[in-house]
């Protein structure tokens, strides 16, 4: 592994010895990895490998059994995520996330969804509601700003025409984009995307790649994503971490990971010939033992 990698030199997120147990089940076992600042880091692995559990630990929805999750801001703030409640992680540590099964506020309009995402700054602007009810203070101006920000993201995600439609009425691909726009409205340092390309057609998938790369380019947001779609992973990620049964089995650039035999065996499947080779090796080993 070369030392020029961003994740070694300037990590935004350091996950150290993360373990998550549910009763007797070990979902994540002693996982250590780093996500580089400004990188697109992909977390891949077969179903049930513990990827979403890692996400839930990072975003505070689960409290990890053991381990440390350290987040460093560009401006220099440092946060220990395992010690913070979920909403504080979003509010203070500025980690935003999307969900595997889309979680929009379906009965609210697209615009309202994006305004809810800016709750905390707007709450302060409304004087914790007290001044806002009386109509005192600069809430109106701040709300206009919030709508401008919402418009910016509506434009980027091509949802401008649907701004006043309920979120639940949008087609699937648009809902995925809206969830990303909503997460970006919180102005995150780290954006965690749980299978953003799931259920998208190839064209939408390519468009999503452009959107994500654009986010990294213009906002400087670091991206951490779980993805099954290998074309997305290989095309946009700078760094890939592979999990299997809650354990890290590979870590490196997409090219490195792609050629890692362990990954091929675990994730992409083992070729028939290779199975024979492995079986042969095992025979030799057992024979030696005997």
């Amino acid at each position, binding site marked *: 592994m070369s030392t020029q990698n961003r994740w070694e030199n300037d990590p935004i997120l350091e996950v150290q010895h993360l373990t998550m147990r549910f009763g007797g089940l070990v979902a994540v076992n002693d996982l250590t990895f780093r996500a580089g600042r400004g990188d697109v880091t992909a977390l891949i692995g077969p179903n049930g490998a513990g990827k979403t559990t890692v996400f839930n630990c990072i*975003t505070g*929805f689960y409290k990890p059994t053991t381990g440390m999750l350290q987040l460093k801001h560009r401006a220099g703030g440092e946060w220990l995520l395992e010690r913070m409640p*979920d*909403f*504080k992680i*979003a*509010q203070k540590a500025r980690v*935003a*996330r999307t*969900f595997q099964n889309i*979680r*929009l*506020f*379906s*009965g*609210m*309009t697209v*615009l*309202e969804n994006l*305004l*809810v*995402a*800016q*709750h*905390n700054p*707007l*709450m302060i602007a*409304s004087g914790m*509601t007290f001044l*806002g*009810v009386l*109509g005192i203070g600069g*809430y109106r101006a701040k*709300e206009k700003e919030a*709508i401008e920000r919402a*418009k910016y993201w509506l434009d980027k995600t091509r949802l401008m025409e649907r*701004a*006043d*439609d*309920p979120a*639940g*009425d949008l087609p699937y691909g648009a809902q995925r984009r809206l969830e990303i726009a*909503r*997460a970006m409205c*919180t102005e995150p340092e780290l954006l965690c995307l749980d299978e953003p390309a799931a259920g998208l057609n190839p064209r939408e998938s390519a468009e999503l790649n452009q959107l994500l790369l654009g986010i990294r380019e213009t906002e400087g947001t670091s991206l951490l994503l779980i993805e099954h779609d290998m074309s997305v992973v290989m095309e946009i990620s700078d760094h890939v971490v592979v999990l299997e049964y809650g354990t890290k089995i590979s870590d490196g650039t997409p090219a490195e990971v792609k050629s890692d035999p362990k990954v091929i065996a675990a994730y992409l499947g083992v070729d028939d010939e290779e199975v024979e080779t492995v079986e042969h090796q095992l025979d030799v080993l057992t024979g030696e033992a005997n």
Partner: protein
Amino acid sequence: MAESSKAAAAGPDFGKAAKDALLSGIIAFALFGPLVGLRTAQNMNNELVVLNELGKALLITAIVVAGRFLLSAFVFPAIASRGKKSKAILTPEEVAAASARTRNVSRGALLFLLVYPFLMVLIFGVQGSIKWVDNFGIQILIYVMLGWGLNIVIGLAGLLDLGYVAFYAVGAYSYALLAINFDLSFWILLPLSGILAAFWGMILGFPVLRLRGDYLAIVTLAFGEIIRLVLINWKDFSGGSAGISSIPKVTLFGIKFDASPEGFAKMFDLPMSSAYYKIFLYYLILALALLTAYVTLRLRRLPIGRAWEALREDEVACRSLGINTTNTKLTAFAIGAMFAGFAGSFFAARQGFVSPESFVFMESAVIVAIVVLGGMGSMVGVAIAAVVMIGGTELLRELSFLKVVFGNDFNPDQFRMLIFGLAMVATMIVRPRGFVSARQPTAVLFERKAISGDLVKEGHG
């Protein structure tokens, strides 16, 4: 046979309806013939004899036949065509027309409410207006206010609160006790009662925050009962089930509404009547209800209101966006409770007497029913539901003329709950999401579109 001749006529399928009716008639007669038509009784010699009451059985059968015929011919087709229509997507024009209609209706209603007492005085005279202003106007407005208050908790935040009447009780007893023991004026105690009720809302809020759905409903229900039982049993504090009487009345800038020389009637040289006080109370509760509506409408456009609605839609997503759901739920509880506290202190001042009797679970159930029937989250819907439910039950008291039909033993009051229940079931079948189910967005970029109730979630506690 008259029915089959009608079958030839165009429109509803009377032939099929007649067949249905005949079939139900046969079943009904087979059932009620032996059950009602034959009655066993003891005669003078203590012998068991069978009395022939075939007339009654035939009457019941006739009712069943007629009812079934009407259902098959008119009601079922109407429901079926209704179902077809509601499945179709509303065009933007229809939605715009609907929201314009709602706006006009609320403006007209507001104007009507402002002139209502004078209208009643004009129609029924000063003395005759008391019933209409007090029993109808004030009573309905109290429930409108309570409905709007609970609407914040249930309709916006999606937290099913079955113990709302507890905060109403807190407000009422706050005013009663503080006014009697410390001789404070209504105008000081009104906000104070609200604050105390909000405080109790927070106290209830803390333990129930981690509960959802059914569990939340049960705990809030228990809380309502606890408050009532404390009021009954802590006799030194609240006077027990005897309640508190001779609670001071409200004054208008120090002017009392009584027969004293400096009283309202003498001051303006009007004949003595309690109607002026009632009219004054009417405007007071109207102002309080409008305050509730105004604050709620304001709050909906503020981040806290949007957070409430977001909480109702998806709590997990809220937390992922950095919203402190604990505080958000607490504020919903507290603000909802505050308005109940206002209403409670008004209630105590109006009645001049409070007792735990007024704060039974039935009251909570009625308020919840108003919110659900009105359409959760809709101010206009809740107001309509309050008028229908409370005005409807009051109107039933006016049905004593039915005694002519049903005999002197008939008491329409006894059928109140029955009619009430049937009406609610019918409403929920026809309009499952309440009278007004569409949600109005709180922020608009290009064009205001109402959101269909199908997309809006009810919340999960």
